[in-house]
């Protein structure tokens, strides 16, 4: 055994491989696809959006009413919980499962790990969200909703659902990297994405109520709602606010990864 081990170890060929940011990103994709639960999570996101559109159609049909195109995506606000948790789990499970040491021993520069997770969770959630939105709209079109009337809106809704959910997932990932503890991170995300808008709306001060619009979910969701000039932000303006939240969370995440012990 000893001779064989030594011989193989000496002969063996790791090739002339070396670390690069691109390879670190690839490794994150390998990680993502080798956990069966991730495919399940993506499927749940997709199915939730379509399923809630179906529930809505059925409910309104009972009242003899046909929903507007944007109403078909009302379920996204519920479905977003899934990518948000996914974002948190992708980073926090590194510590919860003990893989963090292996991960950061292989990539001691650390930030490429975060970049890889951003790319993977962002793209995967974009695909699931856009596909879910497309499915919901197709289902609406086949049941009498006037979806084809505004092609530009359709594109904004499909792409927008993907972008919105993908960015929510990335924001959650960034917060998870800062908080690191799984439960603490999920509570933080729920607080920022769901509780804050409700809480702020209850403060009877007009200035606070105006600021509510700039919270991540309130601003971001404008991308998949009808353009309303009465609201202080355009759909894409609202998305830009969400992006800024995600960027701030990622900046905090990079700083935390750099300075905190693994």
């Amino acid at each position, binding site marked *: *055994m*000893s*001779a064989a*081990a*030594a011989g*193989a*170890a*000496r002969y*063996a*060929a*790791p*090739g002339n*491989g*070396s*670390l*690069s940011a691109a*390879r*670190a990103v*690839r*490794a994150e994709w*390998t*990680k993502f696809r*080798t*956990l*069966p*639960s991730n495919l399940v999570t993506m499927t749940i996101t997709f199915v939730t959006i379509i399923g809630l559109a179906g529930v809505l159609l059925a409910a309104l049909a009972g009242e003899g009413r046909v929903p507007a195109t944007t109403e078909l995506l009302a379920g996204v606000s519920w479905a977003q919980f899934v990518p948000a948790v996914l974002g948190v789990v992708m980073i926090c*499970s590194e510590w919860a*499962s*003990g*893989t963090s*040491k*292996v991960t*950061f*021993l*292989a*990539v*001691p*520069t650390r930030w490429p790990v975060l970049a890889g997770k951003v790319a993977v969770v962002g793209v995967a959630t974009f695909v699931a969200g856009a596909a879910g939105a497309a499915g919901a709209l197709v289902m609406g079109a086949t049941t009498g909703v006037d979806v084809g009337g505004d092609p530009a809106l359709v594109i904004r809704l499909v792409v927008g659902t993907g972008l919105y959910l993908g960015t929510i997932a990335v924001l959650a990932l960034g917060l998870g990297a800062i908080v690191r503890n799984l439960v603490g991170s999920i509570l933080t995300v729920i607080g920022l994405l769901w509780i804050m808008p409700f809480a702020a709306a209850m403060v009877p001060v007009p200035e606070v109520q105006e600021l509510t619009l700039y919270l991540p979910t309130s601003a971001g969701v404008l991308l998949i709602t009808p353009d309303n000039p009465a609201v202080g932000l355009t759909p894409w303006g609202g998305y830009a606010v969400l992006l800024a939240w995600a960027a701030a969370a990622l900046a905090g995440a990079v700083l935390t990864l750099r*300075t905190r*012990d*693994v």
Partner: protein
Amino acid sequence: MGIQVQSLGKQYGRTWAVRDLTFEVQPGKVTGFLGPNGAGKSTTMRSIVGLDRPTTGTALIDGVRYARLRAPLREVGTVLDARSAHRSRRAVDHLRTVAATHGFPRRRVDEVIGLAGLESVAHRRAGQFSLGMGQRLGIAVALLGDPHTLILDEPVNGLDPEGVTWIRRLLGSLAAEGRTVFLSSHLLSELALVAEHVIVIGRGELIADSPIDTLTADAERVRVRTEEVDALVRLVSAEGVTTASLDNGTVEITGLPVEAVARRAAEVGIVLLEVTPIHRTLEEAYTELTRDAVEYRAGDADGGRP
């Protein structure tokens, strides 16, 4: 070459887990890193490989800080924890994710699975692994890049006897190829089987840094029974030699080999009725070395990280 630790200190809150630690680990042999639980072994190893940022001092591998390595896995293989793979991921996929960071070919993953003796379980999820299989998987990861330096934290923990033999041979042959092998343990008996050199720490500070034989060699003791105890004590009393008289004409002489005692006695005609060399076991030497450290730590509730 090897590992150079220079004035390393690591503070958690107000507690120093490691303080002003300086030592070198030479390539070409297995070096043990010994100390009671909580002595700072893991902290030191984590600092060497850049997971912890030292509060003071530096730790270099072949002259370079770990974080600066271009291809860290080809320079250093590290095992810090028997449970280092995601429970739901298959062992082979765990290895592939690590290999992907450096672009190692799939063939290499298969090779290290063979090296670690994991062929039959490679497609099982890591959550089903025993502690010993987890250690083997960790070692497989460490060997991926065929590194020149190996750092292993308590690698024997959880291995069955066959696994212990396996790792002893593996580490021995890796060292024989000129690699640097540095492994920790809180049990001296484990290290004594594999290490040539030993670095002992306690309470985060260096206690000993010496070849493993000299831990015992410097404590030669001979128990002698003679009717002329006083004459013998006068005869051998010299620098570095201590004597302790026991009951019924027996005296213990520390610091002289048994042959020397017998010869000196014969020269002056002292009759020795009984001569017994007393070897201090490694375990005794270790216990003696770390006694103060352990006592202190036992009363030190907010001790360092384990």
